[in-house]
């Protein structure tokens, strides 16, 4: 799931020419904005068939947190 998430996130936020890591605070990315948030919602739905509601999403700080939350949802 990790590699797939990293590539989905890069694609959703249109991050080019650099790698992203689990420790990254994705809200600090220059590319992060409200449309990026919508693109991420779409990517999670399309690639992983899952949704993370705002309340939970606000607690997610790093890419690694996002991965953990997704793994927890996927195993349910």
């Amino acid at each position, binding site marked *: 799931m990790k590699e797939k998430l990293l590539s989905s996130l890069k694609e959703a936020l249109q991050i080019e020419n650099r790698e992203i890591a689990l420790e990254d605070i994705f809200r600090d990315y220059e590319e992060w*904005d409200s449309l990026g948030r*919508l693109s991420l*919602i*779409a990517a999670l*739905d399309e690639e992983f068939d899952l*949704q993370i*509601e*705002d309340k939970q*999403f606000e607690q997610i700080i790093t890419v690694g947190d996002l991965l953990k939350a997704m793994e927890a949802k996927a195993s349910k």
Partner: protein
Amino acid sequence: MALLKFSNVGITGMAACVPANTIVNYSYTDNFSAEDAKEITDKTGILERRFALPGVTSSDLCFAAAEKMIADLNIDKTEIDLLVFVSQTPDYRMPATSILLQNRLGLSMRTMSFDLTLGCSAFVYALSVVYALMERSGFRKALLLDGETRSRVYSAKDRKTAFLFGDGGVAAIIERGERFGESFFSLNADGSREDLIKVKGGGYRYPSSVETVTEKVIDEHGNVRSDEHGYMEGADVFNFVLREIPPDIKRLEAFSGISLPSLDYYLFHQANDYMNGYLAKKLKLPVEKVPSCIARFGNTSSVSIPLTIVSQLQGKLTDKKNAMLCGFGVGMSWATAFINFEQCFISDIVEI
């Protein structure tokens, strides 16, 4: 489960009225910098909206649309036995706006008239109610009016909503006719999500007070609104749409026995171009069959589906066409319909 089927009822004419007052989003800089306005406009794809001038209400827009349609189709007003007015921005708290419109349009006192107060799902909801009543033998013609002045609902100083909403009014005439065949509706509600889109103050739970009309900074971005302005949790609304809308469409496919790809047009509520683009992709709908008018008129709530029909499909509904209508939003409330058009006349858009 609210799945409904009707026979031999359909829309025979439609018209729309929008305010002439055009707000160009790139220059909507009273409260935001030109840079912000450009960034938001480029992202939302909403280039323009129409704002009703002070004193003009959604019923004025609907009245103008109705008069245009009635004149163009030479409709005998004495044959209108049912009038439904759809809005969440009515003229008064009471009486119902439909009744004012009955008088203003010069309709008979024998006209059944009532309001229906839902948001973005309301045109489809109202159509199901009108179809149900029209399927009986008593009514000759039904007039469905749907108007909104959403520009007044949201704060001009809240960047989450300031660039999205616009005003408009539509009229549709509904009659019986064997050419319309069968139509299908799925109607839904989820009040557990009442907080996703809301105007909290000014009703009877939190009546108007100095407190409810006081504008406050509501977040770290400096957005400003009062409790009598609307707010929207955009990300969760998108989550909601992705979770509920595709399954609702599948449910209606199964119930009706009509396959989605066989339809001619797919008309979604015009809230967000990105979201509708994603829905179309997920449902594998060809983009040329998904008409859109959000760039010109923004989000007009319940008016957006019929306004898309009037602005994008004029002259295209004379031959038989099958269409999906899908509205979703505040409530949360959502509805999908498969209906047939044939010899449906569409008037030119009126501006006032």
